[in-house]
């Protein structure tokens, strides 16, 4: 049975399939690596060749493929196998992935842009005829005809193409706030109504050419911005899709296998390590656990659940490990709750930098006042020129560039970072990161790899090391701590031992019953409470005394030294704080040239150290592995967690460093500096441009059509400037499977 056959299950399929009105099925899949445009085309042709396939659309940036087909003729597993045969591993995504809404937005904008462009050209030819005065020689009725034609051709531009601006302005007025759409809509409608009145009266100036060009150029700017934003979002989605929430399912023979949480079925037994997310609704099958349900109920205190009680998907296990029998699966609410966890990173993208909104309102208010002042000034001097000058001021001072700067910079930055393996869950943290001057690093699993090598086993008594290791692994398997994981993986025994009543004591060790003996695995003072000489090894003991001691060797992450050097160059002082023994922490600190290090630190010690540093005026960054040190991370100004597949959804940190790349920190710091620069440049640009252009417009020296071109080009310049973020340091994108 191949792994794709699970998707034949109707309830699993229901999560990812969508039935269209014409009876066809639709599915969006995440595909593995796509090697170039040729591969994309081949894949598209191959899937098209399957019986019943109607439509295939590939979004290469997001690594997503959408297929519309007749599921009676080709089953979902067969479709997925066809993807696999094209060297392209496919995993169905939940049916509500946002790809449709995005395509619809782009289509809508493109249509409006074209309508505005086509009719603007028409209006301009008519205007040209009127300007050069050809028709004046004929007679005035022909001139009137051309004015009427201009008006008719402007109607679709104002009513259809400019509709988003009008609706935006209405919404802003209803919410009683000054936004970017108000000046735009005001300019468009004022000019259109005034010109229409002139046309009906048969006398006075008309500006139909200006207004249709204004709308066209503005839409062109918005369209470029929309495409850029969608591309950034796609790049981010590709990374997020690559890390689904995983669950550890216990096979009938007791072994654990890792499967996506979406593929769990009712009756499956799931093992949940401490600090992990509960992957499905179900009944607890172990004695007692503490659960954090704050994400679901808002209850901030841990809740204790006992055997037989229900656990809710999406809550986080604080003590562990837990064993769960899955009851509900594929339930919409459950899936949505799980989805919420992994979409936190997505939501951050929609947030705008705080403070910009207020500044924008002030800016818009100033523009409106300035327009009014110009109109009044000209009415006193020369009423005939009042309208044209006021409109020119309104258009030229329109703060489009100002409003676009921050969102454009932020969207681009988040897209670039996602591509390089850094997910940002809190976009405000990016601006704080720029001011960080003190970084506190955890040791195990952060500056060292989470994979520890088993260097030596000392056995007491006459049992073989393999047996002792298997016993230790039975306990270690239940914990998510890097040391425990490494011991569990080091076991080579073929006999699978199952411990019962396992309890994980954070920072100390694991205890549990195995074959009628109480075993303890962990620090020497935990495993052998009777007291023994101080020792750094991991000990396995029962009530009679020590059984074995394991010596683990740590290895530095490949990019740890490089990262710390770069951070020092950025003016950040690194500090190493670890719960480990002094000699080991000192060794690692020396290898990384870290001057300040602290050993034997409990989470509370680390937290008070951070608070002291913040009290002294430092802006702090805490880096950890995200699961064992959540409170420490929460205590820093900016938190970063090294997250791998399983941990991603539960790592509560502002920045998530994927693929174990510590160097992502340096890149995030660099990007945060660029964001500040680009925003400052955008501000300076729009301010300088306004200062130069407004006097000319107010004095009536700038016709409205030139104002429209100037304003649109200025917005475009800002968007393109934001696109420079992440360009200078040419880093190859991180390849992910």
């Amino acid at each position: 049975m191949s792994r794709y056959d699970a998707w034949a299950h109707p309830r699993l399929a229901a999560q990812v399939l969508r039935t269209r009105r014409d009876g066809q099925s639709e599915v969006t899949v995440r595909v593995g690596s796509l090697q170039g445009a040729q591969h994309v085309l081949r894949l598209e042709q191959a899937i098209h060749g399957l019986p019943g396939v109607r439509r295939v659309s590939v979004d290469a940036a997001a690594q997503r493929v959408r297929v519309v087909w007749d599921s009676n003729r080709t089953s979902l597993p067969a479709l997925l196998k066809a993807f696999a045969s094209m060297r392209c591993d496919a995993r169905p995504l939940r049916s509500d992935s946002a790809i449709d809404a995005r395509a619809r937005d782009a289509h809508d904008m493109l249509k409006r842009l074209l309508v505005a462009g086509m009719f603007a050209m028409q209006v301009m030819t008519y205007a040209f005829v009127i300007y050069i005065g050809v028709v004046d020689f004929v007679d005035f009725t022909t001139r009137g005809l051309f004015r009427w034609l201009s008006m008719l051709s402007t109607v679709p531009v104002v009513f259809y193409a400019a509709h988003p601006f009008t609706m935006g302005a209405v919404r802003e007025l209803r919410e009683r706030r000054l936004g970017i759409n108000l000046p735009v809509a005001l300019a468009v409608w004022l000019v259109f109504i005034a010109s229409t009145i002139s046309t009906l009266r048969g006398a006075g100036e008309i500006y139909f050419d200006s207004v249709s060009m204004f709308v066209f150029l503005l839409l062109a700017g918005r369209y470029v911005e929309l495409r850029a934003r969608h591309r950034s979002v796609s790049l981010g989605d590709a990374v997020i899709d690559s890390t689904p929430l995983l669950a550890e399912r216990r096979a009938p023979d007791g072994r654990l296998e890792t499967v996506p949480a979406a593929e769990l079925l009712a009756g499956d037994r799931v093992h949940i390590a401490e600090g992990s997310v509960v992957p499905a609704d179900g009944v607890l099958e172990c004695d007692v656990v503490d659960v954090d349900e704050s994400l679901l109920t808002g209850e901030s205190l841990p809740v204790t659940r006992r055997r037989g009680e229900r656990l809710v998907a999406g809550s986080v296990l604080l003590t562990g490990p837990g064993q769960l029998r899955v009851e509900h699966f594929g339930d919409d609410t459950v899936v949505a709750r799980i989805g919420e966890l992994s979409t936190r990173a997505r939501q951050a993208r929609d947030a705008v930098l705080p403070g910009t909104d207020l500044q924008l309102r002030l800016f818009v208010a100033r523009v409106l006042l300035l327009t009014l002042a110009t109109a009044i000034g000209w009415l006193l001097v020369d009423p005939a020129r009042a309208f044209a000058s006021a409109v020119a001021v309104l258009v030229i001072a329109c703060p489009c560039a100002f409003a676009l700067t921050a969102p454009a910079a932020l969207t681009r930055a988040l897209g670039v970072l996602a591509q390089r393996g850094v997910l940002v869950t809190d976009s405000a943290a990016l601006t704080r990161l720029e001011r960080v001057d003190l970084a506190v690093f955890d040791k195990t699993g952060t500056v060292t790899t989470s994979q520890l090598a088993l260097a030596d086993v000392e056995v007491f008594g006459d049992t073989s090391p393999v047996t002792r290791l298997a016993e230790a692994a039975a306990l270690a398997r239940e914990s998510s701590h890097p040391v425990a994981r490494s011991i569990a993986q080091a076991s080579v025994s073929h006999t699978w031992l199952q411990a019962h009543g396992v309890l994980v004591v954070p920072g100390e060790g694991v205890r549990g019953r195995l074959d009628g003996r109480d075993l303890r695995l962990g620090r020497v003072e935990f495993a052998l409470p009777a007291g023994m000489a101080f020792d750094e090894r991991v000990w396995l003991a029962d009530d009679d005394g020590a059984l074995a001691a394991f010596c683990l060797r740590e290895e530095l992450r490949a990019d740890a030294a490089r990262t710390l050097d770069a951070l020092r160059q950025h003016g950040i002082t690194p500090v190493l704080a670890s719960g480990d023994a002094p000699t080991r922490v000192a060794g690692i600190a020396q290898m990384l040239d870290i001057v300040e290090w602290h050993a034997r630190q409990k989470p509370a010690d680390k937290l008070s150290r951070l608070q002291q540093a913040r009290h002294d005026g430092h802006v702090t960054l805490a880096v950890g592995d995200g699961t064992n040190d959540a409170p420490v991370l929460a205590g820093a100004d900016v938190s970063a967690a090294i997250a791998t597949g399983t941990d991603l959804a539960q790592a509560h940190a502002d920045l998530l460093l994927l693929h174990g790349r510590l160097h992502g920190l340096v890149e995030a710091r660099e990007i945060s500096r660029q964001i500040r620069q680009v925003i400052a440049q955008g501000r300076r640009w729009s301010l300088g441009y306004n200062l130069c252009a407004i006097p000319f417009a107010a004095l009536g020296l700038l016709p409205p059509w030139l104002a429209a071109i100037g304003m649109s080009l200025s917005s475009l310049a800002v968007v393109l400037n934001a696109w420079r973020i992440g360009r200078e340091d040419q880093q190859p994108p991180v390849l992910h499977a």
Partner: protein
Amino acid sequence: MNIILVLIPVTLLIVIVAIGIFFWAVNHQQFDDLDSPGVLPLMEEDPVRPDVPTPPAPAEESEPH
């Protein structure tokens, strides 16, 4: 000069037809992928057929073509 009265409606008609064609193209995803069609002429081999291991036989027989 009366020819203008004929030609102007004709241009408007052309604009409307062009917009109609463009809307059709946008709705049929012709503008969604502007990158890969560029390499289409460079592909020499025939499109690869995927090997579907278990074609759903009963459905294929009953389906009218």
